[in-house]
């Protein structure tokens, strides 16, 4: 074994091993404990705007509003993760679907009809899905990088069409979009931390559930509920035949096609589902804002969405969630440095790309592949005098790599 250890050593701790370690621990806990943990986490998320915890809540801006934005970004990131992460299609125009969702709601509830929000939602989702298929049908045949620029063009076409079409409200956009139906049951007080100890503040309450312009918290709850539903659906789909087909298509399209995977159809499905989730996020955004205009749907937003997915670790839904939280929450938290925000964000993107290229929380498969590669590399770059010995102990090396792979998986 001595040859192997010399060749394999020094096994320095990998960057970001902490995050991966936490996840490995989580995976080893029994199912019921996992379920309990998840439920507790969800409950905490629901209570977050009422608790207004001192360090994480945002001074200056309404914490509930920030949480709503974060939830919408999470939704978008999970949707985009289907397209970019699972199916491996680089989409730079995702904001187009977001805009189509928002505008369908706007047109149906305010601009040209007075439908209730709940009725307009399914129509909006149908329209976004259809737009995903319509965009994907001709463009998914072109290769990866072209797809990026075509989708980028799609996003811009959507935005410019919104600006230039009177029927859609042109540059001022659409206003007075109604809220979802309310069901006022009880008043929930917020906590007040201004004295250092938490006090229940009955002068600052949120009505459960009343959607008003002044209180974003119910909107946050609605968004969070949708996030949870989408995450559950995402889990089912990822573990199904569809998810495996996406993965196969992403890794090697020709091989997948040869194995009988109708790759084009699955790519189209990924596009449509991604658009669907983007549409949900857009509809939520429209009803919370009550007004929408083309300014909210710029290319920059598309890029932020994509950064969220890649930062978090493309292909992993929890990675996408964390990436979205980073992208949406950090700039709001540090509003004090308003003018430096974008600069710092840019630096952060570069640093993360360099030091944690697989994302904050990469999928297990990526980690495994990286470990294999590292083992291989450490063998290749080993001391030349050891080469002969390594070769003779090849069996050992192979087993070692295999073991490493297994204890992660």
């Amino acid at each position, binding site marked *: 074994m001595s040859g192997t250890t010399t060749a394999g050593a020094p096994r320095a701790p990998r960057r970001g091993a902490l995050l991966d370690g936490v996840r490995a621990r989580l995976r080893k806990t029994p199912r019921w404990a996992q379920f309990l943990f998840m439920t507790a986490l969800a409950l905490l998320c629901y209570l977050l705007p009422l608790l207004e915890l001192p360090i994480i809540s945002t001074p200056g801006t309404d914490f509930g509003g920030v949480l709503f934005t974060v939830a919408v970004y999470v939704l978008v990131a999970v949707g985009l993760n289907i397209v*970019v992460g699972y199916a491996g299609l*680089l989409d730079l125009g995702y904001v187009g679907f977001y805009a189509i969702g928002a505008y369908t709601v706007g047109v149906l509830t305010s601009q040209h009809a007075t439908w209730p929000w709940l009725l307009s939602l399914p129509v909006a989702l149908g329209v976004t899905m259809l737009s995903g298929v319509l965009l994907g049908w*001709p*463009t998914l*045949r*072109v*290769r990866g*990088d*072209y797809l*990026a*620029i*075509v989708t*980028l*063009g*799609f996003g*811009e*076409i959507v935005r*410019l*069409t919104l*600006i*230039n079409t009177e029927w859609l409200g042109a540059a001022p956009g659409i206003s007075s979009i109604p809220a979802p139906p309310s069901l006022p049951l009880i008043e929930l007080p917020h906590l007040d931390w201004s004295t250092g100890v938490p006090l229940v503040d009955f002068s600052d309450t949120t009505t459960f559930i009343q959607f008003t312009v002044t209180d974003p918290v119910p909107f946050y709850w609605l968004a969070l509920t949708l996030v949870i539903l989408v995450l559950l659906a995402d889990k089912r789909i990822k573990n199904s035949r569809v998810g495996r087909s996406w993965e196969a298509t992403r890794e090697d399209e020709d091989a997948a096609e040869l194995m009988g995977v109708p790759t084009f159809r699955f790519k189209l499905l990924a596009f449509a589902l991604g658009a669907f989730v983007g549409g949900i996020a857009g509809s939520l955004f429209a009803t919370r804002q009550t007004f929408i205009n083309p300014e909210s749907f710029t*290319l920059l937003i598309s*890029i932020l969405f*994509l*950064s969220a997915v*890649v*930062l978090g670790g*493309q292909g992993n839904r929890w990675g996408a969630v964390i990436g979205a939280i980073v992208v949406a929450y950090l700039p709001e938290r540090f509003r004090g440095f308003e*003018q*430096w925000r*974008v*600069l710092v*964000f*840019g*630096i*952060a*993107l*570069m640093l*993360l*790309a*360099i030091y944690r*290229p*697989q994302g904050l929380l990469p999928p297990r498969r990526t980690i495994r592949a990286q470990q294999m*590669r590292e083992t291989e590399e450490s063998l290749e770059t080993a001391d030349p005098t050891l080469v002969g010995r390594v070769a003779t102990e090849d069996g050992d090396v192979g087993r070692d790599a295999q073991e490493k792979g297994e204890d992660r998986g």
Partner: protein
Amino acid sequence: MQFQYVLDNFVSLFVGGLVFGAVYALVALGYTMVYGVLQLINFAHSEVFMFGTFATVWALWLIGADTSTMGVALVLSLAFAMVVSMVTSGGVALLLERVAYRPLLKRGAPRLVALISAIGASFVLSEAMGLRGAIASALGLESVLGRYVARSRENLGLPTDRTFTVQFEIFGYGVTNRDIIIVVAAVLMMVLADQFIRRTRTGRGIRAVAQDPETSSLMGVNSTRVIQITFLIGGLLAGAAATLYMLQVGATRYNAGFILGVKAFTAAVLGGIGNLRGALLGGFVLGIAESLGAGLFGGEWRSVVAFVLLVLILLFRPTGLLGESLGKARA
């Protein structure tokens, strides 16, 4: 639809498009070369261009050129500004390669991650320009730098005279000396770049790395150096484009690169990314199509025309007009 308008003004729209297309094509060359060598969409290339536009204005300030500068003095000061702009953009491009890409290449990061790094670098560069006032005051240099850092978020105009005389007329459209300068200068640059890639030893190295990085490094090509040179050439061309753009448009700001960058990249894809001559053709086609489309549907549909054209061309020619390749056709 204003068919009559387009018919009446066809030549002026066409020439206007040609002039803009020249600028697109020069910037597109930078995208296409980096893509050819690294298969990377160099998202920050638009900021390299933006730095060039500022360098142009600053260089003109530095030598005291203003609206009263005329004749030979004007030509010389513009030439000086172009050189300064090229050097600046080239420098920024080299810096970009060193800071944002090389560390990633060493680690063998996936391509999408390199794109994210590029996006980050793009934000950093554009914001650094937008915040130059704040940065200068943090360093205590505000009084030294004076107007160079004042009103950093505002538009910055070209200080020299921008009334151009008509040299000759084609079909009723007066071609100004500006149009001539821009098109001639751009075409000259493109020919130089093309010949450099085709004829010199370094150019051969670039083509070799574009074809097959591994084999070319086995054959003794220093791929790090080749990548550096590719970035440098892209930067130099973007710097030249920046001066021409300032002549044409007359003003810049910290985020001026973004839209132009997107258009230039579109032009590169249109012509077949990785293909130098494709980028030229793509730039001109895009500029002219945009200009005619704007005449036909109204100026506000300009960019929509550009993107719809892109989608249509990719549908029928999935690898762009001339096909992709810097070395030879790649599958």
